[in-house]
């Protein structure tokens, strides 16, 4: 019995690796709202790509909150590439495992972010709570849906966008800025672990007046819901979200997939990759490759960057706002 048990486990382990002789397998650990993007992109990549010895590539996907994915890769998930929501998460993998070189941001163009996005607001039909900008989210009686910044990358962009707005509104008065952002989060109806969960909470379960989410996620929802059911609102100030990608060299070298993994990420920068990116509501940097109809959807909105002096880059922003006992942790502390 035991021997058979061990044999079965071993067989299962082998089959889980999915190593077929005429096929190379890549594993891409990605954040929540990229499901449709990578489904289309992977199919396009696999269709045209052959390894030097003529093998095809099949790509496995794992999606989850960016923080959760980071934790999994640190704990040993054998991802060949990571395509996460923000730089800090890939930095964490680099620092804690050494499987990604510290200079990873310089290895691909545009700080290794082949696409960008921004943060928008979604409201219900007719905008019953008259939500037009961040101010309205801090009002009493407005119920907000946003994921948990502790586990979701998108949620951290949401938070920083609100912070940037409040910082400008209060002329850099940090106490009042913190109070403003705290008011928004105290209006939260549900904190899901990832952006996708929040979308479901807002759309399927009729919870909340406003959803703070990725621009791409917002368009996705507009597409999937009946026309007019939801409306998208661009706030007066948002943030330039740069979701980065990197090869997990430590894993890929071991799997013998380093070259494939690099080519896979480079394909994101190709005209075809950029076209697919724009089609799936992420902002491409190569606008010439994209379909003009896809581009027409993206509205111009003033955006701050996490590298602005206000935040001083992801490392500082993470430490100040999201680490244990950071500013975010103070929000829900009951008043003493």
């Amino acid at each position: 019995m035991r021997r058979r048990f061990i044999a079965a486990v071993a067989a299962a382990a082998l089959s889980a690796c999915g190593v077929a002789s005429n096929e190379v397998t890549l594993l891409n650990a990605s954040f929540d709202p990229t499901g449709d993007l990578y489904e289309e992109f992977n199919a396009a990549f696999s269709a045209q790509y052959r390894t030097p010895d003529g093998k095809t590539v099949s790509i496995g996907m794992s999606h989850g909150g960016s923080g959760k994915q980071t934790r999994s890769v640190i704990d040993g998930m054998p991802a060949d590439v990571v395509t996460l929501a923000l730089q800090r998460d890939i930095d964490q993998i680099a620092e804690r495992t050494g499987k990604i070189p510290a200079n990873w941001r310089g290895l691909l163009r545009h700080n290794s972010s082949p696409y960008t996005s921004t943060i928008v607001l979604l409201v219900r039909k007719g905008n019953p709570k008259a939500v037009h900008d961040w101010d309205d989210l801090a009002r009493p009686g407005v119920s907000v849906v946003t994921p948990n910044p502790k586990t979701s990358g998108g949620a951290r962009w949401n938070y920083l966008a609100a912070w940037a707005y409040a910082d400008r509104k209060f002329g850099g008065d940090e106490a009042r800025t913190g109070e403003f952002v705290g008011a928004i989060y105290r209006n939260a109806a549900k904190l899901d672990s990832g952006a996708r969960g929040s979308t479901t909470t807002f759309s399927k379960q009729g919870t909340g007046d406003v959803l703070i989410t990725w621009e791409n996620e917002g368009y996705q929802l507009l597409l999937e819901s009946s026309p007019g059911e939801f409306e998208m609102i661009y706030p007066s100030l948002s943030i330039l979200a740069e979701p980065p990608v990197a090869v997990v060299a430590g894993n890929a070298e071991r799997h013998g997939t380093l070259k494939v993994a690099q080519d896979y990420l480079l394909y994101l920068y190709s005209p075809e990759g950029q076209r697919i990116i724009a089609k799936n509501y992420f902002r491409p940097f190569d606008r010439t490759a994209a379909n003009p109809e896809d581009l027409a959807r993206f509205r111009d909105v003033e955006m701050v960057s996490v590298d602005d002096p206000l935040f001083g880059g992801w490392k500082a922003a993470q430490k100040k706002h999201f680490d244990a006992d950071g500013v975010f942790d103070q929000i829900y502390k009951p008043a003493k």
Partner: protein
Amino acid sequence: MTPKAISKPPRANWRRRSVLPGFGLSLGYTIAYLSLVVLIPLAGLGISSASLGWNEFWAIAFDPRVAAALQLSFGAALLAAIVNTVFGVLIAWVLVRYRFPGRRWLDAAVDLPFALPTAVAGIALATLYAPNGVFGATLESVFGLKIGFSAIGVVFALIFVGLPFVVRTVQPVLEEIDRETEEVSATLGAGRWRTVTRVIMPGLLPAILTGFALSFARGVGEYGSVIFIANNLPFQSEIAPLLIVIKLDEHNYAGATAIATIMLVIAFVMLFVINLLQAWSRKWFGHD
């Protein structure tokens, strides 16, 4: 799953029992498998926790957010266990004492939470009690009561997972209760209510308490069904198991380990209490 009564055989039985072979093999295998699957992994948690040191451990345990999550997990489990005790005893009573069409189906339905995966229960409950769900919309418009995405939602999920424990613990004891005492009580002029509360309930008490404790123990650790229906806000409806997941995803292994250790110790205590209850039941009422 509870410690089930193992009646201690009289001394004379000891030798007679030992004529059967396989003691070494079966006990050896039991202990080896138990160690491999349960004890060694749990010991790993203990070691990780011990490496934190007392100061760090207590700092995490008394962090207000952790305390709030533990309080919610225990409070909601307690409330759900109370509701389940009331209705569980009632359902057991109806199933044992009355004959009506569909009784067998009702009896079968009680086990549903044992067989239905928690994630399935979670999305079903969230759909029912969401503000736009069948029950959620009605309750909110009629009573102004918000169940989905609130702490009450946690209680509802725990009622679902915990109900069978009470029914299935009380039911067999109720079946065995000697009805003659009831008849005697009635003949002596006691009213029905008096007979039920003074004659029947005391005999059921150990089983009721055991069912309550089981429902409570299951509720404290429940995760799958709760996360879909709770709004997961810190200090509001963030349960302790969810906080473990969040700490883990923040790469805060120390925090996750400390909360897990607290929950594990409490699980031990719960099992101990359940054991005591059943020993008590055996001693006083001859059944368990």
